[in-house]
């Protein structure tokens, strides 16, 4: 069995742009904003970067194809740059490329950067786009909230829930994230809301209402990674390392085989268990002290708590309403506001999650600093409940 990635790679520096409706900023502007913070944090020169991985989710409304937009925006010195795309899990995919390159010994220092410019479409929500020549002919013309609303229907049917009980727990998920986002100056949405507001907002895709949806944002985030040895040589202290990096990709079973009932994310269960094994986590509820999960919609976060084994099956509603995942709960989730309020520039989101871990472990999270974070888990999901890509990274203090 493979050794895994644990403690082989550390984060040298990270950066993240302000997320939001950045009408004034081009994708290049956003990339430079994140990168300048990152390279200053890393304390190296641009020419010390051996290779880069560039994540951008939607070609048609963003930077266009290939790795060139990153190389041009940052004026990189003709180094190898690889473009990656794995839907909303793109940011973690870029990170994975850079981390694996360093771990392999092929690179000493590598860059991962994700960017998305979603607000050039002229309308709200994610851009309308093709799902491929053949899929477009028979797939429903589903929006992202429409796809994730299926999860609510599946969860409700499986656990024989009252609609309102599920909706209230979904509302609490959003209220908590808004409270956290209000303490984050880089967050897209920085306003607190009430459960009643969330419950009473108009439906986007039943039972998902306006406040069950994450922000559709412009933004960029990046990381520079290296080996622990090089980081120490560069004089870095309080090193933050990668404990696990896993990916599970649907193979069509959920979409076409009766074994999946639509009430959970099969990929999350598989990828998180692999990640726990890789990081040596035996009891996630005890050992994982913070989570950044892919709360594209409140129902996704609710279900994910069970898929990550932080709630028992069918127990997420009670745990959520008990405040388990609130900032002052036993397992704070989305302490930076999450996709819900920090925002969701697709290609950047996975890196934004890791950025929050990194700040928390370095004690640099400002008003939202957690008292004693030990291990952070990041859950980055691309696609739809019935077929998707799930990335899990576990990050923590080195050693």
């Amino acid at each position: 069995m493979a050794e895994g990635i644990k403690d082989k790679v550390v984060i040298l520096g990270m950066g993240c742009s302000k997320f939001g409706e950045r009408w004034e900023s081009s994708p290049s502007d956003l990339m430079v904003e994140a990168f300048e913070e990152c390279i200053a944090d890393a304390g190296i020169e641009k020419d010390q970067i051996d290779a880069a991985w560039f994540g951008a989710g939607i070609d048609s409304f963003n930077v266009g194809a290939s790795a060139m937009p990153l190389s041009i925006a940052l004026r990189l010195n003709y180094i190898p740059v690889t473009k990656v795309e794995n839907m909303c899990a793109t940011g973690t995919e870029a990170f994975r490329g850079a981390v694996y390159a360093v771990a392999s010994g092929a690179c000493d220092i590598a860059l991962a950067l994700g960017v998305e410019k979603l607000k050039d479409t002229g309308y709200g929500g994610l851009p309308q786009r093709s799902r491929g020549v053949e899929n477009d002919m028979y797939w429903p013309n589903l929006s992202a909230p429409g796809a994730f609303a299926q999860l609510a229907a599946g969860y409700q049917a499986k656990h024989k829930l009252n609609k309102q009980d599920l909706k209230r727990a979904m509302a609490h998920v959003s209220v908590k994230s808004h409270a956290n986002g209000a303490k984050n100056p880089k967050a897209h949405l920085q306003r607190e809301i009430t459960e009643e507001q969330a419950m009473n907002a108009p439906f986007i895709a039943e039972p998902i209402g306006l406040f069950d949806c994450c922000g559709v944002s412009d933004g960029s985030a990046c990381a520079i990674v290296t080996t622990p040895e090089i980081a120490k040589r560069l004089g870095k202290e309080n090193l933050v390392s990668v404990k696990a990096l896993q990916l599970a990709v649907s193979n069509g079973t959920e979409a076409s085989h009766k074994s999946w009932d639509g009430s959970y994310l099969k990929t999350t269960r598989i990828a998180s268990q692999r990640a726990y094994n890789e990081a040596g986590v035996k009891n996630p509820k005890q050992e994982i002290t913070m989570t950044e999960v892919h709360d594209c919609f409140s129902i996704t976060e609710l279900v994910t708590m069970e898929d990550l084994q932080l709630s028992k099956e069918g127990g997420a509603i009670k745990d959520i309403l008990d405040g388990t995942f609130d900032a002052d709960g036993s397992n704070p989730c989305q302490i930076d506001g999450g996709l819900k309020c920090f925002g969701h520039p697709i290609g950047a989101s996975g890196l934004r999650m890791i950025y929050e871990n990194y700040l928390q472990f370095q004690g640099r999270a400002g008003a939202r600093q957690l008292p004693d974070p030990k291990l952070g888990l990041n859950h980055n999901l691309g696609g739809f409940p019935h077929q998707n890509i799930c990335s899990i990274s576990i990050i923590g203090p080195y050693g």
Partner: protein
Amino acid sequence: MIGITAYGAYYPRGRLSKKAIADANAWFDAGLNAHAKGERAFCNWDEDTITMGIEAAQNCLSSLPNSELSTLYLASTTFPFLDRQNSVLVSEALNLDSGVRTMDIAASQRVATSALIALLEAGHSKPGLLIASEHRKTKAGSRSEMLWGDGAAAVTVGSDGVLAEFICAETAAVDFVDHYRGEDSSFDYDWEERWIRDEGFMKIVPSVIESLLSKASVKACDIAHFVIPTDQARTPAALAKKLGIPVEAIVDNGVSTLGVAGAAQPLLLLANALEKACPGELILVTGFGQGCDAILLRATQEVSNYRPIRGFSGAAGHRREETNYNKFMSFNNLVERDIGKRGEADKQTYLSGYNRRKDLLTGFIGGKCTKCGTVQIPREKYCVNPDCHALDSQDDYPFSAQKGTVKTWTADRLTFDWNPPAYFGMVQFDNGAKLMMDFTEVEEGGIDSGSKVSFHFRIKQFDTQRGFRKYFWKAVIS
């Protein structure tokens, strides 16, 4: 013995209240108030001549499960495609053999009776299927908007299990231009109603019927069911009286309940007559348009035992009232709607890709693994069963007649749909397969996990830029 061996009918579920038409338009033409009682059948946005024709044919063929057909004729004046044989698409959606002889027959209100005569006189060794389907566009506030409806019917002609025996037929071809629709027009142009009655119906029809009855040595007073398709309220009775046919024999044109379905009307009324006919009764079917066809049939003993899955009365009774006139206008593309930027997305159909997946898209064909027995859709190279994954192991497996259950669903108000919200979700088929698919004709509060569904061929999308429309199967709550 040759004759009708099966029949089926279909009306779209939507029934537009005629009061809604009058409320919107009587300011311009107060005469519309005279017709403002009852309702008319109209297509959902995703229905057309092809989809209705398939529904009627499925209804008809449900009583002939294993019958091999010789022919499929599709009669209409409202084909979605002018050069792409519509009947071939219908044939493939019905999963008929490619050796079935298909033909589109068009351009007259008596197209269905002319095609029926051709089938009755052809003497094919295997049954022939005739479908008539009509979806006419009408101008806002017109008399035709009030009096017409959309619908389809189908019959099979053969020699086994004859429900109504063919006695004889008669035709007069007369270029009497009561109305016409030129190649560049979406709408009919017609002449004065009284002139059509006096110089058209009353002069052309009687001589054809008299000649027919004489040939058959049948007295007019013995006709039990008289099919005379028209939107003119008094003309059938005037004709019956003139010919000596009992007025009670007239099969109601349903002007105030369903609307007159143009080229499909003769077969719809024939289906209605066959549903009511007793053994031995005579049925006279006429079609009027550039002359007149008349067909004489005699109901057999079999007619009493015949029960299609829905039948004429089932189709006529399957209804949902619509009082929103604007919705009718929008569904018929009679008003330029702001469909939003999401509606602007390119709907190009890549024909080579379409052709590759035609079995799925048109035939709703999935696969059944010969190694593990798992039924699945869409069919891919490897079996979907996680414990199997056999390569190239699947036989064709048709899904169109399957039943299923809603596993998950939503009403999506963000995505573009011609009738928002868009309902879609995961369907669990009774055969074990699963598919994320569109639901159509869902009423608010009428769907939940566990709802039972059946599957129907519908329009998936319009490519207005290129004049194409693509079809796929959708789930309808049973």
